[in-house]
């Protein structure tokens, strides 16, 4: 079958890292990814299903891996060679349309659940992600044993499967996974907003994940005022349509927050700031910006995958800022105290927010270099989400 595969080729990763800034397409060509014909993954036993890919999105974390920017932290949490693709809509062998909750959780790996009814992403011990019987892999798309969505087919455990409503389009459904990530980040803000009369949350960055976080905030965090720093006009328009109250250019966000909060500026920092800030970019500059605009004892939700950063943390120390990572999803505690699965919330959200409009381009696997280049420069090119489309017969072989 046809698959894009990432191998552990250190030299290629290094070169890809160097050229990616100049040419994402060249990085894809030179880097550790290649289009191969391979055998489908070996069956993994009871509870596992073969999923035939229909659409599979290209995520920022995929790009980091391909371009050699991902942290070495992941070296022991993934297994090479692997087929990327964790934002996946596919068919089971009986034709049922499913989306994958890609975290390879306790159930998939044969470990006891951390609590009854736990989602794949739940739990406070990640041993299962790296221990047999499966090879290491934090998610489908990073695990050699299961394969991933950038291929004709792959394996998914029944604990990962979510049936897609018949009336939902493929383009809407492929947005469920990123929407779940955004909603999870939005709900991670909630502890900083409890009891606050007029909560203010800023979202820095309005790519796919930032936009999904905005949607999550608007739908599931009551009464919140949302300020967004979005670079491109189409991102700004989408941010507004998804419920942002104030949308400005990223370098205007600090002043917009100050105006809204009514605080002062001392040095580079606001004296007050947002109650919570979601960093949907994930680099040194964005983290620094978040520290500057989040009020003392406020919360920063780090949604963008940061890798190595260089940040002066004196402000964090002085302001007792809480920084929390936001990785994937699981079981959420809602503002009203109820418990919901993030994916269930996401399925509702993509339909209600018409998130199919965020799918900007589809590519066959054969054109992966163009697809990756497009995704890497999505903002500049007026795009949001770029996906591989494997629905045609040609793509199956």
């Amino acid at each position, binding site marked *: 079958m046809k698959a894009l595969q990432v191998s552990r080729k250190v030299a290629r990763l290094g070169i890809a890292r160097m050229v990616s800034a100049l040419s994402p397409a060249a990085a894809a060509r030179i880097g550790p990814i290649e289009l191969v014909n391979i055998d489908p993954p070996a069956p993994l036993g009871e509870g596992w299903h073969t999923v035939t890919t229909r659409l599979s999105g290209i995520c920022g974390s995929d790009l980091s891996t391909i371009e050699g920017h991902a942290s070495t932290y992941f070296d022991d949490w993934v297994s090479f060679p692997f087929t990327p693709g964790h934002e996946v809509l596919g068919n089971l062998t009986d034709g049922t349309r499913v989306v994958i909750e890609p975290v390879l959780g306790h159930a998939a790996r044969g470990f006891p659940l951390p609590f009854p009814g736990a989602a794949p992403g739940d739990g406070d011990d990640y041993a299962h992600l790296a221990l047999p019987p499966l090879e290491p892999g934090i998610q489908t798309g990073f695990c050699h044993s299961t394969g991933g969505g950038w291929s004709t087919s792959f394996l998914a455990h029944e604990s990962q499967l979510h049936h897609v409503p018949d009336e939902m389009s493929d383009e809407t459904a492929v947005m469920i996974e990123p929407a779940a990530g955004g909603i999870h980040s939005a709900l991670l803000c909630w502890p900083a907003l409890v009891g606050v009369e007029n909560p203010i949350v800023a979202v820095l960055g309005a790519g796919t994940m930032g936009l999904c976080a905005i949607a999550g905030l608007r739908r599931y965090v009551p009464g919140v005022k949302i300020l967004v720093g979005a670079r491109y006009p189409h991102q700004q328009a989408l941010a507004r349509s998804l419920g942002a109250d104030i949308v400005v250019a990223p370098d*205007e966000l600090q*002043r917009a927050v100050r105006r809204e909060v009514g605080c*002062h500026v001392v040095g580079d920092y606001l004296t007050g700031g947002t109650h919570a800030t979601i960093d949907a970019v994930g680099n040194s500059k964005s983290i620094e910006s978040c520290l500057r605009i989040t009020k003392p004892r406020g919360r920063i939700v780090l949604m963008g995958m940061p890798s190595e950063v260089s940040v002066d943390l004196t402000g964090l120390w002085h302001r007792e800022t809480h920084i929390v990572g936001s990785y994937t999803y699981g079981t959420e505690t809602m503002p009203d105290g109820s418990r919901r699965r993030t994916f269930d919330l996401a399925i509702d959200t993509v339909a209600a927010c018409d998130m199919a409009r965020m799918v900007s381009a589809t590519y066959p696997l054969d054109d992966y270099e163009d697809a990756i280049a497009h995704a890497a420069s999505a903002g500049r090119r007026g795009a949001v989400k770029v996906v591989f489309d494997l629905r045609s017969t040609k793509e199956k072989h």
Partner: protein
Amino acid sequence: MPRPGFVLEVDRNTPPIMFWRGENFSLEKLPAGRSRVIYAPEPEKALDDIDGAIRHALLNPYDHDPLPALLFPGMKLTIAFDDVSLPLPPMRRPDIRQRVIEAVLDLAADAGVDDVHIIAALALHRRMTEAELRHAVGDRVYDAFAPRGLLYQHDAEDPEALEYIGATPQGEDVEINKRAANSDLLVYVNINLVAMDGGWKSTATGLSSYKSLQHHHNPKTMEASRSFMDQHKSELHKSNWRMGKVLVDSGVKVFQVETTMNTDTFPKPFDFLSKREWEWNAKDRATFVGVSAALKRTPTRMARNIFHGIEAPHQMTSVQAGEVGAVHKITTENVYRQQLVEVQGQTDILTMGIPYICPYNVNSIMNPILVMCMGLGYLFNMYRGMPLVREGGVVIMTHPTPWDFNPVHHPSYIDFFEQVLAETTDPYVMSQKYEKSFAEDEWYKHLYRTGNAYHGVHPFYMWYWGSHGMQHCSRVIIVGGNVKAVRRLGFTPASTMDDAFEIASDVVGNTPTISHIHAPPLMVCDVK
């Protein structure tokens, strides 16, 4: 005898005309047969004995007792003076204000007055730096008063330093500096650069607060002032006069000292900027070519420093003192004598080169809001009778209009540009929706009171200043400006003057008549 102002009808032999473009200039060929260029009168001769004239004015005031008769031991004397926004460019030392203040202090000393405060009448402008204060009042006055806290700057946000005087019949609140209000005598030292300066505007505006200012610094008043330079048709003037009556009725005693200046604006080697192009000699042409070429290669910051380092040779042409109204009547006549140019009728297009400086960016950046204010607020309003451009006509400005702000001087301008103008350019809408929040913003107040920042509400006032121009013209085009910044202003960008005429043709046709106001030097066009 200096030559009066002049209106040049452009023909085929007319050389290209110089247009200011911020910290540079360009030569533009205007269409022959339907363009005219309006030049300011040449500088009047300055007074021979300035100090003598000042002393004479203080001793021989209009409708007022001589100053010595008003001074007595134990009295509270306050001297207020115009701030850094005047004159433009800043004048060579000694500044007029220094000369007048020293003369007043001499008389006060003779009378045994020892309770003297000297106050920079900032209104909501930025606080002056020590260097700027020293330049205005002189080192002797500064060193004698500032260290003891007796020379300071009006603080329109200090409730302890303000006094509510009353309201006009129209309900306009009058609140001014408490020390000035409670003094036995307030001597106001003015520089009257243009016809709207001075009079009751000095005290009722310069020493007042937002509470007072909002009654005339608003879109309705500004739009109805036609123009600011014509007292009889200026609602701004009328409001200030009403407030002045409240001050008089409440017992505030004002001794007004007003001065006028000639139009000797630029020193060598920039003096060619004041000349008429066809009178440029070989040296002028060479200087123009050399300076403009050099400026093109000069970093903007350096070019800005060069220009803001210019100290003008302009000098005093008259000084009169006494009762505010009586003094201002003569002052206005003197301003008109120097600046008035008779012009016949309106044209379809008004062109203007926006220079590097306006009252609100001394030693600072001419940001896009100030470009708008300088064009539509000031140069457009330099008329008496009717605007140079017909209603529904087009204004074309030349300026680089950088998306650039001085964060120390203009912090609220940045927010205004990013937040308010991104949503609306309508003065009425923004005044209703945003003005109060900017005016009451504690951060802006802090910067205004302790730093060198214009008050939070100031960018709104700059925008309102152009209300009449915006309402009158159907299109405003900026040639050579930052495209994004120009669009944010709600105007149309153009690369060249020809492009601008092409764009304007949608509104005024292919053969529009054109007026170019060749300022600075400043002038008031008496449009018949």
